[in-house]
């Protein structure tokens, strides 16, 4: 199955965030609890952690890029050989986030 990771509405009043650092590259397998990406708001770093296992397949944003809340950051799949559809996929990757 294909999953998308979108910018979470993590901080009230923040409509747009900057990608700080990815903790993996296409092919990296994540388990629940693993840190996937750090996002930066005007005052905080949002740590986005996997809420399920999955394989990172495509990055749709690079460190330093800006993305609005709800826009896709990356695409994941259950198996490494699943074809990635042209669109974003329907399912959201389960995530947990922590604001530091």
């Amino acid at each position, binding site marked *: 199955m294909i999953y998308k990771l979108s910018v979470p509405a993590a*901080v009230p009043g923040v409509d747009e965030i*900057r990608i700080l650092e990815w903790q993996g590259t296409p092919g990296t397998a994540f388990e629940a609890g693993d840190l996937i990406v750090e996002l930066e708001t*005007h*005052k905080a770093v949002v740590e986005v952690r996997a809420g399920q296992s999955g394989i990172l397949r495509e990055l749709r944003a690079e460190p330093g890029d800006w993305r609005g809340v709800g826009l896709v950051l990356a695409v994941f799949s259950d198996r490494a050989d699943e074809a990635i559809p042209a669109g974003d996929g329907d399912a959201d990757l389960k995530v947990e986030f922590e604001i530091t």
Partner: protein
Amino acid sequence: MSADHGVASTKIYFREANVRALREEMRQNPRVLILGQDVGAFGGSYREFDGLYREFGAARVRDTPVAEAASIGIGVGAAASGFRPLVCITYMDFLMLGFDPLINYAAKLRYKTGGLLTAPVVVKTTAGAFGQGVAHSQCLEAWLMSVPGLRVVAPSTPADAYGLMKTALRSDGPVVYIDHKRLFPIPGEVPDAETFIPFGQAVVRKSGSDVTVATHGFMVRIALEAALILEGEGVSAEVIDLRSLAPLDINTVAQSVSKTGALVTLEEGQTTCGVGAEVAARLYECMGMRPWARIGALPAPVSSNPVLEAATIPDAARVVTAIHLLLGQ
């Protein structure tokens, strides 16, 4: 990085615009100092001094106790003896503790000494309601506009935050530089080249033909939101961002009102003796009476209750209603 309109720029936050202006000026002039609560290793309450302590050290980036009068007093004294301090007062509400050194000493020093001494101090502070209650939410900029010798600026974009701060740090007299809490989460493009925004130059944020809205700070965004709603109702509003309240650029407002024929002033502070009252009076002095409506906070303290806070502060719906009433619609 991007290159909109042929000018290379980078999208950054307000705090980063502050840091960039300060870093450039501190590198260029060893007499630029920072004083304030938590400005040192902590990097500022809003991270607006991030990295400066590491680069410039404790002698130039000095933490002060919770003593606003003393902090501004020390800043004014240091300015009179040849330094260029920026004093950070986290909340504008507490600026009033430092009015004596700021108003009686810094703003008057050039006059009192026949021009022999100046106090090139910048007091950076943060205004606005953002869920922090009666004594951490006020917009008091209109109080400051009536002080001869004091300059007052209030950016609404990171580019202006950078450019106005650069000009403030080169200014010869005291400047109060006012950020707004609600603007901090909103990034914006800032030119990569060194840029100064001169004081006393307003800017048209949106052109229109039926009514002029003159405003500043976070209310620029409310005005633009209202203008978008009005556009759908067939009313074309021109939005002017004053940017600099003292000196005030009345010419840009007058040019706009001579085209639109009507003025709305919009501020988050109180309307009595407010920024809008001053804009309207100066406009009438130069072009005669025109239809005018003023919008500001209701005459009550900004509440600690979020529902009442929202009820007190102008929003786009209030601006739209006021403009329809003014235009007799």
